[in-house]
Structures are given as structure tokens and as C-alpha cells.
């Protein structure tokens, strides 16, 4: 059964090829059948492979399938080959499944407007690239998938290409992530030069053998990979592209910019965890980046008006949690949170899409309100997804994954109280901003009439993801609550466990209790400010300091502004000034000089005898002078 592995990326790729070449001449129904069907097949194969993997695990917990040798030059022999272990298995399963429900949703959601087949072509190509990224057995193939998903992200953000604002957002996303990718690529050069391979498993082995913990090369190499990861996963300081990426269709935001692609950086670090373990400073940087991103993006989410931008900042912030987990060596916790986040964040975007479509493309939550009765699916989707996001204790998936991260941030040998507290503040912020969104959207006075209600292809994904957002956490129940760590046990064949510090005053149960309090506080504040007494929030935001902070957070801490002044304007300025290439001026000068001397000499051919006689005389004098005096 494992031999079917190559089909998981190949089926969506084949479907992409068909849609790209023949899709525009085919009926929408056929496009939907092929576009969604290919992902359905992909999901079924993933399930079969999972079943087979769990029923009879391959030797060493890993299975490799080589298709062909890609390049072979002087010992550099990357292959087109797939590698399946517990880590890539879980990622593949989650990605293909979430992709499937989102494709199903899109079949209805995208029905109006043009470019139906183009949309499914891009989405299918995305799934193919993402799966390639996850299954790649070497870093070069991973890089191919990595760039492929970046391309699809670009194409889908700019899907409605006729509005040039979308084009700008798309270009920004591609370029900002490619800044990170450049670091990633340089990391590949370094790794190959010093370790002689890009095959991930061999690379990790050699790194562990040849580089001592804390060696400069390991630190530099891992830092370069981290550069790629922060770009793709929208972490500080390269997070600025993700909020703008919301210009794309909502299913795209759900799939690419929430559930799957943006977690590629998390996957990369988990995949190369050996390297990061060899470089404690880099790993600490991962934790700090994560914690800082949790807080900064959480604050930005608090003041946005656009429903999708709130969710975008929330995604940035939640991936911050995953980075925090990676940074303290809680590899499995990061992957656990990736999975639950994929469920509830995809759900939140899908229901946000329902709301937006119902209200004639309205994005501003301050112009919504009272939608509870009219859009019950959206309402319950938001309540469940939002609660999972905020970590409503015991009954939501987000609670289990986030608490595992919080506890690891405290208890790991690489953790600290500061990181733990940052995580807890993040919980408060999360619960505050998401309930603010829910209260403003679904409670209060109705402002716009609902014009459009979802059909079954939208309802099924919402229900499915809602269920998963609730029960998805039960695969890993912590010690204090019954101790069923099935998920982490499975992953431990690929990723090492957290190394815990000596016991201290705070226990796991206490950490969970404090997190629950932080959650409740956030919910309480949201209730107070946005449901009970709206004027309170206005008072807070209306004084000078409040306004300043509001503006600052609203504009993502001014980072766009900074990058614009520092990088974009100088480059554009230079390109425009030098449009005609100053170097050409030199050659134009030479040509001009020739022309000038030609004109000057031509003037002497005036036909006047006196001038000729004078010239001859002067010449004779000069030559005589030279002859006589030298």
C-alpha cells in the first residue's frame, strides 16, 4: 500500500495539468468534479497509506520511494524521492484532508464570477506542491515544493487580477517570502559544501557526527534555514505579507494562508530538528521569535476592523506558538498545534467567507452585527472555531495543543518562565480578540440584511471541521487529565521528546489552570467591552495614548512603513533614475566626441584658399619647430 505514495502529489498535479490546458473549455460541473475529485482521491490514498503505516510500520518507521535521479553532478545527486515517516505522514494526512473539505467548499463558494477552472487549477497545483514539500526526502526537492506553494500563494492572492491592489498584495507576498527563501538557498549551499549531501536523513546524521553542539557552522546553517522559515510562516520580522494576502479568495486564505502553507516553516524546522538541536543559540532565537510574534500579532489582531485581517493576525500569532514550541524542543507539541490549528483556523476562515458572502462582500466587523439567527452555521462555526482558537478548556482541540506548548515552554530545559508568561498573555489576547469579533459580528443590532445563504457543499465542510475542532485534541490528553498521549507517542518515532527540567512549584495541572484563567479573563474583557458596554472600549481608545497605540497596532507596528522607506523606495528610485543605464553614457560620449571632431574637421574644408594657405603655413611652422627644438 505504501507504494501508492507517489500518487498523493501526482494525482493533483495531473489534475492541474488538465485544468490548466483544457479547463477553460469545460463545463463548470466537470471542472468541479475533476478539481475536487482529485483531492478526494488524494485524501483516500493518504488514508490508505496511514492505515497501512499504522497496521504494519515499515522498518525504522520510515519508507522511502525513489522515482528518478534528478541531477547528478560531482557527488551532488538529489533524487525525486519521497520519504514517509510519522512526521510527514501526519502532515500529509492533515493537509490532504483539510484541502479536500476546502475544495468541496470552494466548488460552491467560487461558483459566481469568472476563472472557475483557473481557481481549481491553482488550488490543485498548490496541493501537489505542498505534498511534495512534505514528502521530499532531500532539501532540494523540499525547496521545489517550497517555491511551488509560494507561487500558488502568489497566483491565488492575485486571483482577481483585475484589481491592481490584489496584484500588489500578491507581489508583496512572493517577494517577502522569497527574501526568506534566499537565506534558505544559501543555507543549502552551506550544508552541501560542508556535509556533501542534501538528503535530509543523511544530512542530519552527518551533522550530528561532524558538528559539535554549538559549532559555528551549525548555528549559521540553522539560522539560514530559520530565515526561510520565518518568511514562509510569516513570523517576525517577515510577517508583513500575510495580512495583505487576505486579498485572495477566502478558501485560499483558509487553505494556504491559515491551515497549510504558512506552517511549512514549522515543518522545515521540525524536519531538521537535529540541526537546530546542535545550535542552541538559533533554537533560542526560534523561541524568542515565536513568543514575540505571539504577542505582537495578538495586539495587532485586537484593533483590526476587517474580519479576514483579524484572522490573518491570529494565524501569525498562532504560528508563533508553534515556533515557541520548536524553540524549546517540544517538537511534537508544535506539530500537534499545527494539526488542531489547521482544523479550527480553516473553519474560522470558511465561516468568515459565509458571512462575507452573505453581506455583499462586507469585511468590516463594525458594520456587521446580529447575524446569530440568520446564519446559524456561521455562528456556531465561529463559536466552536473561536473557542478552540482561544483554548476553551477541556472540550476544544485548541486547549490541548496550546496547553502542551505552554507547559513545555515552562518545563523544558530550554524553556523559561518568561516564555511561559508570554504564552499566557497570548492566551488572554487571543481570547479577547476572537470574542470581540464574535460579539461584534453576531450580537447587537443587525446592520445589513443577509442576502445569501450557504448550500450543502459549504455546510458539510463547516460541520466536519467543527467536529474536528472539538474532538481533534482528544488524541493527546495530558497527564493531569487522564494521560493518553497517543499523538506524541506516534510522533516520537520521528521526533525526540521534550527534555524536562527538575520539578518545581508549578505543575502541569497548575499551568493548565492558569491558562484557563487567562482564557476566562479574555472572554470577560471581550464581554465587558464589546457586548455589555461598548462605550468602555471607546473611552479607552479615545485618549491620546490610546489612539496612538491603536494606530500603531493597526498598522502592524509600523513595519510596512519602515520596509517601504528602507528597501522598496530606494530600489524603485534607483531603477527609475537609471532606466537609461548611466554606463551607456560613456559610449554615447565616445560617439559624441567622434561626431564633434568630425564636425570640427569638416569646418576646415571650407573651400576658401586663404584658410588652406594659412593652415599649410601654420603646419610647416609647427613641424619645423618640432624638428629644430628636439
Amino acid at each position: 500500500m505504501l507504494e501508492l505514495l507517489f500518487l498523493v502529489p501526482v494525482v493533483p498535479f495531473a489534475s492541474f495539468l488538465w485544468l490548466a490546458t483544457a479547463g477553460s473549455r469545460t463545463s463548470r460541473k466537470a471542472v468541479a468534479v475533476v478539481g475536487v475529485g482529485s483531492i478526494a482521491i488524494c485524501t483516500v490514498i493518504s488514508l490508505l497509506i496511514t492505515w497501512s503505516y499504522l497496521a504494519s510500520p515499515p522498518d525504522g518507521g520510515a519508507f522511502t520511494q525513489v522515482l528518478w535521479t534528478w541531477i547528478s553532478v560531482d557527488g551532488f545527486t538529489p533524487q525525486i524521492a519521497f520519504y514517509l515517516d510519522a512526521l510527514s505522514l501526519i502532515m500529509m494526512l492533515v493537509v490532504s484532508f483539510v484541502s479536500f473539505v476546502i475544495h468541496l467548499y470552494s466548488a460552491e463558494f467560487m461558483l459566481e464570477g469568472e476563472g472557475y477552472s483557473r481557481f481549481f487549477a491553482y488550488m490543485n497545483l498548490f496541493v501537489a506542491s505542498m505534498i511534495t514539500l512534505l514528502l521530499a526526502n532531500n532539501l532540494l526537492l523540499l525547496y521545489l515544493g517550497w517555491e511551488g506553494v509560494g507561487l500558488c500563494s502568489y497566483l491565488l492572492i492575485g486571483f482577481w487580477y483585475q484589481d491592481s491592489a490584489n496584484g500588489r498584495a500578491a507581489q508583496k507576498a512572493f517577494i517577502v517570502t522569497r527574501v526568506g527563501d534566499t537565506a534558505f538557498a544559501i543555507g543549502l549551499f552551506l550544508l552541501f559544501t560542508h556535509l556533501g549531501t542534501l538528503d535530509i536523513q543523511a544530512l542530519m546524521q552527518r551533522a550530528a557526527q561532524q558538528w559539535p553542539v554549538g559549532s559555528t557552522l551549525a548555528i549559521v546553517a540553522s539560522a539560514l534555514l530559520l530565515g526561510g522559515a520565518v518568511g514562509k510562516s510569516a513570523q517576525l520580522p517577515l510577517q508583513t505579507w500575510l495580512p495583505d494576502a487576505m486579498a485572495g479568495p477566502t478558501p485560499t486564505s483558509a487553505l494556504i494562508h491559515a491551515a497549510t502553507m504558512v506552517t511549512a516553516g514549522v515543518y522545515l524546522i521540525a524536519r531538521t530538528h537535529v540541526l537546530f538541536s546542535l545550535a542552541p543559540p538559533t533554537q533560542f532565537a526560534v523561541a524568542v521569535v515565536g513568543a514575540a510574534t505571539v504577542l505582537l500579532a495578538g495586539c495587532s489582531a485586537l484593533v483590526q476592523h476587517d474580519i479576514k485581517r483579524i484572522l490573518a493576525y491570529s494565524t501569525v500569532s498562532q504560528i508563533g506558538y508553534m515556533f515557541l514550541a520548536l524553540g524549546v524542543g517540544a517538537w511534537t507539541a508544535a506539530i500537534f498545534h499545527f494539526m488542531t490549528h489547521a482544523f479550527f483556523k480553516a473553519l474560522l476562515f470558511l465561516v468568515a467567507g459565509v458571512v462575507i458572502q452573505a453581506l455583499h462582500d462586507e469585511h468590516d466587523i463594525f458594520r456587521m452585527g446580529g447575524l446569530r439567527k440568520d446564519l446559524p452555521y456561521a455562528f456556531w462555526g465561529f463559536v466552536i472555531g473561536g473557542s478552540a482558537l482561544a483554548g476553551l478548556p477541556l472540550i476544544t482541540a485548541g486547549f490541548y495543543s496550546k496547553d502542551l506548548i505552554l507547559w513545555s515552554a515552562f518545563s523544558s530545559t530550554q524553556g523559561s518562565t518568561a516564555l511561559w508568561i508570554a504564552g499566557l498573555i497570548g492566551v488572554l489576547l487571543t481570547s479577547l480578540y476572537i470574542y470581540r469579533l464574535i460579539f461584534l459580528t453576531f450580537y447587537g443590532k443587525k446592520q445589513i440584511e443577509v442576502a445569501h445563504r450557504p448550500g450543502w457543499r459549504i455546510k458539510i465542510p463547516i460541520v466536519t471541521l467543527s467536529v474536528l475542532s472539538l474532538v481533534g485534541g482528544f488524541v493527546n490528553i495530558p497527564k493531569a487529565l487522564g494521560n493518553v498521549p497517543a499523538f506524541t507517542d506516534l510522533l516520537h518515532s520521528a521526533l525526540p521528546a521534550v527534555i524536562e527540567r527538575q520539578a518545581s512549584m508549578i505543575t502541569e495541572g497548575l499551568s493548565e489552570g492558569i491558562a484557563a484563567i487567562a482564557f476566562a479573563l479574555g472572554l470577560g474583557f471581550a464581554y465587558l467591552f464589546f457586548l455589555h458596554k461598548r462605550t468602555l472600549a471607546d473611552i479607552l481608545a479615545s485618549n491620546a495614548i490610546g489612539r496612538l497605540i491603536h494606530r500603531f497596532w493597526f498598522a502592524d507596528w509600523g513595519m510596512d512603513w519602515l520596509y517601504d522607506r528602507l528597501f522598496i523606495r530606494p530600489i524603485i528610485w534607483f531603477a527609475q533614475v537609471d532606466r537609461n543605464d548611466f554606463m551607456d553614457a560613456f559610449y554615447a560620449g565616445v560617439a559624441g566626441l567622434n561626431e564633434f571632431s568630425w564636425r570640427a574637421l569638416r569646418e576646415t574644408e571650407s573651400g576658401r584658399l586663404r584658410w588652406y594657405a594659412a593652415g599649410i603655413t601654420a603646419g610647416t611652422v609647427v613641424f619645423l619647430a618640432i624638428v629644430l627644438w628636439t
Partner: protein
Amino acid sequence: MILIWLITILLASGVAAWMIARWSVLAARWIALVATLADFVITLVVWLRHYGQFSIVVQGNWLEQLDWAWIPRFGIHFHLALDGLSLLLLMLTFFLGIVSVLVSWTEIQHAEGFFHLNLLWVLAGITGVFLAVDLFLFYFAWELMLVPMYFLIAIWGHERRQYASVKFFIFTQLSGLLMLIAILALYFAHHAATGVYTFEYKQLLATPLSSSAAWWIMLGFFVAFAVKLPAVPVHTWLPDAHTEAPTAGSIVLAGLLLKTGAYGLLRFVVPLFPGAAHQFAPIAMILGVIGILYGGVLAFGQTDFKRLVAYTSVSHLGFVLLGIFAWNELALEGAVVTMIAHGISTGALFVIAGLLQDRMQTRDMGRMSGLWSTMPRLSGAGLFFALGSLGLPGLGDFVGEFLVLLGTYPVSRLLTILAAVGVLVATFYALRLVQRAFHGANVHEWKLPDLVKREALILAPMVVLLLWLGLYPLPVLNTFKPAMKSLQQYASRPMREAK
């Protein structure tokens, strides 16, 4: 014998097309098409016949050769020889030759016979350059490329064709003269050392030279090839020539003429003067990186579709220069893959530019915008080749540039990092091209016909080839690997001494 056919088919068909065009233009076009197709098939057959043997070819043996005494008194031979490297470049030549004939099918509407004469003769000159292993013959072929190319630009070019063609001619002619002097200097130096007058490549390889003589002669060759490549700062003829040339001219210029410069560096500069080249390598590599970055930024600033594409060549060929002078197996093979992939992806972008010009009578991107809504297929193709140009993994350019950078890294980290930033710059210009031409609103309300069958037929193989090079370049790598090994062997001995 097969090698002489490659050239004579082109020369003779050129004359035939010229004559017959008086009676039937269509016949002239068909003659040109059949001639290029025939040459392509011949090289394809040669490739398939030798394919199994590439890995076992003895060092330095030619796959095919032909050696006639031409002017024996001066040691001049009509000596053509083929190895894996020249074979691949020839296949590229004839492939782009077919493309050039096809894109001119409707575009060229006056003096068609003379046009095809010039086109086929340029191709013949290029074929000669890739095959000649007698330096006199090489120079002869080098000049043979120049004149018909000049006519192609000057007669069938766009608005500023006079300026561009003269500029092109002066740059290449002057640099060609430098090469002639260098060839003669080497010829006499060889005689002084051995008493034998010869232009034969293999014999000249062993010429003992004082290091200063080697340095100056090497520099003469280098300048000639650097102008063709083009390297900054002698690149300024390129944007004008490429922009003003007719589509077929641009394809031949970007796809092939530039490659003759790179080929010259590979075949002659480094193997003939390994010590001097080794000394010179840091400068050449810096020039390469400057080309990558500066060319990219210049491309980014352009408003003319064709001019933008032209400047991207400066950037891409910078990688080739960098790779050649890094001179290790990874970088060298990367440079060759870049040469081939660039020929296809940039050639295709020029085809797109030609199709747009044909439909819109403008190359100004300010007048485009939103073409996707009226020509989705053409725009999709444009997007695809722009992605090739920005080095998307899975397409040919990526393999080449990645290998170059991978090979350059151990030689110079700083230059590798700067060149990698150049890949980022490629993202700027490629996305800008897509955004300004194809995406955006159709503000000028263009209503234009999408790709017709002939046009799709030109672009489809280019798409396939670029994907093939990107996903399974192994057959191509295997084809030129032995040739590169023997080049490295020629160059290796004194380089070890230099270290």
C-alpha cells in the same frame, strides 16, 4: 562528413530561399523551415546514436570530426569537430532556428527572400562557431555571424534600427578585432616556441607561454567574448540590439549569439590560458555578479516589454560568467544548463513580445495591462516563461543557476550570497512584467485574438523543454559531462601549479 552538411544545408538553403522568393515567398519560408528542421533532425540522430556512449567517451575524443587542409602554408585547416557540449548547443541552435522561421511567418512582410538568406546565414555562422577547432576558421565563422545579423536588425528592425544595428556592429567588430590580434599573437608565440605554424586548437593547447604573454593574449580573447556575452560594462549594445531587432533576430541574439561568447570562454579562454584565467577569475566573477545584480535592477526599471527581457539576459548571463570562472564541475555544468535554459526561456519571452507587438503595435507596458482577460492563453504562456526567468524550481533556469551557485559557494561565499540576491532581483522584474502586461484591469479595453494554432505550436515545445530541463536534466548533463571533463583536464595542470 555530417558536420559539413550541417553548415552547407543552411548556406545553400539561404541562397535558394533568396532566389525563389521572387516567385513565391511561401516557398522561401518553407525552404528555411525544412533546412532548419533537417539540421535539427540530423543533430537529434547524432545525439541518439551516441547517447549510450557519452559516459564512456575517452577523454578528448571528438564524437564526429572533419579535417581538411585549407591553406597548408599557414597551417590553416578546415577542421570541424563535435563533442557533447557543441552538440547540445547545436541542437539549441537549430531548435531556435525553427522557432525563428516560424515566428517570422507572418511578421516579416517585405524583402522576405533576403531575410531568410540572412537568417540562415547567421545560423550557419553560429554552427561554424560551435564546431570550429581551428582558430582561423573559428574567427571566420565568428565574423560570418556578424554581417547577416547586422542586416537583420538594420532592415527588418523597429523604430531605432539604424542606431541599434550600427552600435551592435561597432561593438562586436571592435572586440572581434581584438580577438584576431590575440589569435595571431598566439599563433606566432606557438611558432616561436615550437617552430610550427598552426591554428589547430589541440596543438595550441600545449603552447608554452610566459605568464605576461598569456595574460595579454587571454585578455584579448576575454574581451571579445565578454562583449558577446555580454558582461557589464560592455553590455550596452545588447538592450538596443535586442529591442530593435525583429522577433527572429531577438531570439537568435539572446538564445544563440550570447551563447557563442560563453562558449568561447569555455572552449578557449580557460583551457588555452589556464594560469592567466585563474589569476583573472576573481575579476571575471565580480563582473559576473555585477551583471547579475545590475542587469536585474535595470530590467526592473524598464517600461518597454522587449527591453525588460533584454536586460534580463545581462542578469542571466552573469550567472554563466560566474560559473565558468568558478571552474569546478558543479559550477561549469550549471553554467551550461543556464545557457541552454536561458536560450529557451528568454527566446520564448521574445516570442511573446513579438506576438504582442504583432497584435498591439506597441511594446510599451504602460499601454498594456489586463491582457489576461482578452488573451488568457498567451498571458498564461507569458506567466510561465516569466516564472522560468525568475528561477522557479522545476524549470530549467533553476537547475542551472542553483548548480552555479552551489559550485561558486566553496570558491567565494560573498559572491555566492550576492548572486543569490540576484535571484531575488529576478523576482522583482519577472513579477513586474506579469503585473504590468497581463494582470491588472484591461484599462485600454483591448480586444485581441488569443494564440492561434501556429503560435501555440511554437510555444508548446518550449514549455515542455523547459519543464524537462527542470525536472529531468540528467540526459542533458550526461551529454556534455565528458566534454566538460576534458576541458577541465586541459586546464587542470597549470592551475594546480598556480595554487
